[in-house]
């Protein structure tokens, strides 16, 4: 495991634990911020959608299996791999500007929670009314954007420290 993958694994694990323990006590109408989703978005912004996609899948799988999850496994995996792909396509340089990553975080939150909720509707996993669903997505979007102000820069800094400038030297897109 190289330094980049190690940094990603640490960031995802930390986000998962904080999301289920600390932030599950700081909820807004039952909604806790999606820290794991924001970390996946930050990884995708820095390293592109190839890495974002794989990270999203792995992080989502962890979120599906780690306690206290009880929904059908694979739902967060699908939602977060879409997030990784979308966020990775939003920038082409790996150096997102502040406005850019905040927009990307908002888009990621909306896409991620929506895909997760839709997969639940298809599977009728827990039978939840559509009104309740839309309200939850809206609250989650607001909370995620606020938390993104801290989570995304921290994750980007961690990734930068793990692998300073190597991708851009070797990358074919920037000779």
């Amino acid at each position, binding site marked *: 495991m190289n330094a980049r993958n190690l940094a990603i694994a640490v960031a995802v*694990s930390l986000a998962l*634990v904080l*999301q*289920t*323990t*600390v932030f*599950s*006590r700081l*909820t807004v*109408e*039952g*909604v*806790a911020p*999606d820290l794991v989703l924001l970390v996946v978005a930050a990884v995708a912004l820095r*390293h*592109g*959608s*190839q890495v974002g*996609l*794989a990270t999203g*899948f792995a992080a*989502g*799988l*962890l979120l*599906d*299996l*780690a*306690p*206290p*999850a*009880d*929904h*059908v*496994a*694979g*739902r967060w*995996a*699908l939602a977060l791999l879409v997030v990784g*792909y979308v966020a*990775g396509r939003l920038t*082409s340089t*790996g150096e997102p500007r502040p406005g850019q990553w905040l927009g990307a975080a908002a888009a990621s939150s909306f896409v991620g*929670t929506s895909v*997760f*909720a839709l*997969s*639940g509707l298809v*599977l009728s*996993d*827990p*039978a*939840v009314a559509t009104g*309740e669903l839309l309200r*939850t*997505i809206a*609250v989650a979007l607001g909370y995620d954007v606020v938390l993104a102000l801290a989570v995304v820069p921290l994750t980007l800094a961690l990734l930068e420290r793990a692998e300073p400038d190597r*991708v851009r030297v070797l*990358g*074919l*897109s920037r000779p």
Partner: protein
Amino acid sequence: MSDRLNRRGSLEPHDPRRPRRSLVTALVLTSLALMATDHLAGADGGSPVDPLRRAVGEVYGPVENAATTVVDPVAALPSWVRSRREMAADLESARSEADQLRAQLASNDYDRNRLQEYDDLTATAESLGYALVPARVTAMGSAQSFSRTVTIDAGARAGLAPDMTVVNGQGLVGRVLRVSATSATVLLVTDADSTVGGRVGSSMKVGFLHGRGDLGEGSRLDLELVDQTYVPKAGEPVVTWGSQDGAPYVSGVPIGTVDSVYSSLRETTQRAVITPYVDFSALDQVGVVVPSGTTSDRAVIEVDGSLR
């Protein structure tokens, strides 16, 4: 770097930031296959994903326990101090009450005979005396997951097994879904998939309680009564009906009170709205009902209230 042919047939370099189509397809199909497997197999009970869940729980359960142990004293310092004092006061008053009762019992034969009668009456209620393994809620699912589950810091080593009833000081909390060595996942009764057999306390009428999937202080349960002619009154208490061998729910655990009653002409059953006693947004200390005499890695609260 793998290059590939584009539509015009010329070789184009692969952009390392763009994912390969094969990777996208593989991961999407893996997710879909996992969902299909878990959804279809999970309906009959033993899903092939369960061992995976257990394995991840073995790793993240202790980490969640540790994180809560670190964070909680800081976050809940004021209430911790207060509840310690309250507990001491409760213990004191319970002791003095017990002493008083014992004195009365010893002093008066008439009282003793009457007490015997009460004993017979309360024999039914004695089924409420279960051994409990104390545990703390360490992690909670968020509203975005649309399922109401929590993790507790007791697992197989504490004597827990799936389908055990979880209660707290106020009433019924839920049931154990799965356990790892040191943690367990609990399905709350407010989950949309949760069904509990309930009994309206004053009339012994039975019905089924369904969760609505909402969290927070305003969470409600729906009670569908089997006897459609009976209309429960507001304020009537509802307790668990109980299943064979006490799994997944033991009988006689208080759930909540009747809030309001709806009946529709189309449907053949009454629907009552129940306000649970438990505040599901502020769960902390819970107890898991275990058979008396269970070996555990921690003190078990026995039927007579003693710690073992």
